């Protein structure tokens, strides 16, 4: 099964996982990495690499979801990009995370990442437009 790591500024990552688990119950192979104001880059990179090893143990690949393109969480994740092994989708939102968890058993890593990029965008709505 594809492993998932959420990497964000501050505690968003852990709280995204808390929110997702509140909705769908406990999920496996799902870890959070937080980058705080005082985090040393090397320490954060090490924690991320270690997390990739843990959730990627079975060789099915690892999907990293980050909060913002251009931010440090994305920049440190990019160093781990590897075709078929590690993919990144930026701009994580809750619908995207839920879709990643439910979709990861039925598709390969590249297809999952490509689908999530479109899905995450389509999950941003403006209810006023629907009236």
């Amino acid at each position, binding site marked *: 099964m594809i492993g998932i790591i959420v990497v964000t500024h501050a505690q968003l990552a852990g709280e995204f996982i808390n929110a997702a688990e509140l909705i769908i119950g406990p999920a496996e192979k799902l870890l959070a990495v937080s980058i705080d*104001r005082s*985090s*040393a*880059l090397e320490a954060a990179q090490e924690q991320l690499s270690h997390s990739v090893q843990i959730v990627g143990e079975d060789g099915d690949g690892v999907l990293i979801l980050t909060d*913002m393109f*251009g931010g440090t969480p*994305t*920049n440190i994740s*990019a160093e781990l*990009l590897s075709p078929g092994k590690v993919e990144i989708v930026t701009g994580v939102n809750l619908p995207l995370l839920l879709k990643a968890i439910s979709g990861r058993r039925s598709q390969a890593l590249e297809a999952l990442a490509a689908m999530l990029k479109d899905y995450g965008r389509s999950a941003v709505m403006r209810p006023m437009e629907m009236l």
Partner: protein
Amino acid sequence: MSLVLTRIDNRLIHGQVLETWVPYVHADCIVVANDEIASSPLKRMMMEASVPSRMRVEIGTVDEITALFGSGSLEKCKILLLFGNTADALRAYRNGLIYQRLNLGNLHAGAGKTRLSCTIFLDKEDIGFLQELDVAGVAITARCIPADSERSWKKLVPRRKLKQ
């Protein structure tokens, strides 16, 4: 050319720089002087892609950027200049890339580094480099994001660590 911010930030272009400093100093050009990023196509591409398209971005080695400043091609720009560490900032200055003020943003922990603030960790070598810039007349201050108060770097460093 106006140099609206010269900053040492080991994260180089990242959220704090793009979301707070760029609008605060009204920069229209970001320049990164860093040998490692300059030689990594992926990191370079990611950093370039993260900058709004209305801005100019120049990424190069410390020597390339020093030469770029000397070439006059940045004449009309309002530049936000980023270095990754104190050694690069000093090397550029010694080679003629002159700046009047230097902002210390993120200089994070590493072996042998002492914590001076939540985002600034320096070792003896860093302090020596900054002191050389200070003596040359550069006003060095610590301020991670515009919302932080600005403090002279010397107020952060214990007096016994400064060479008299």
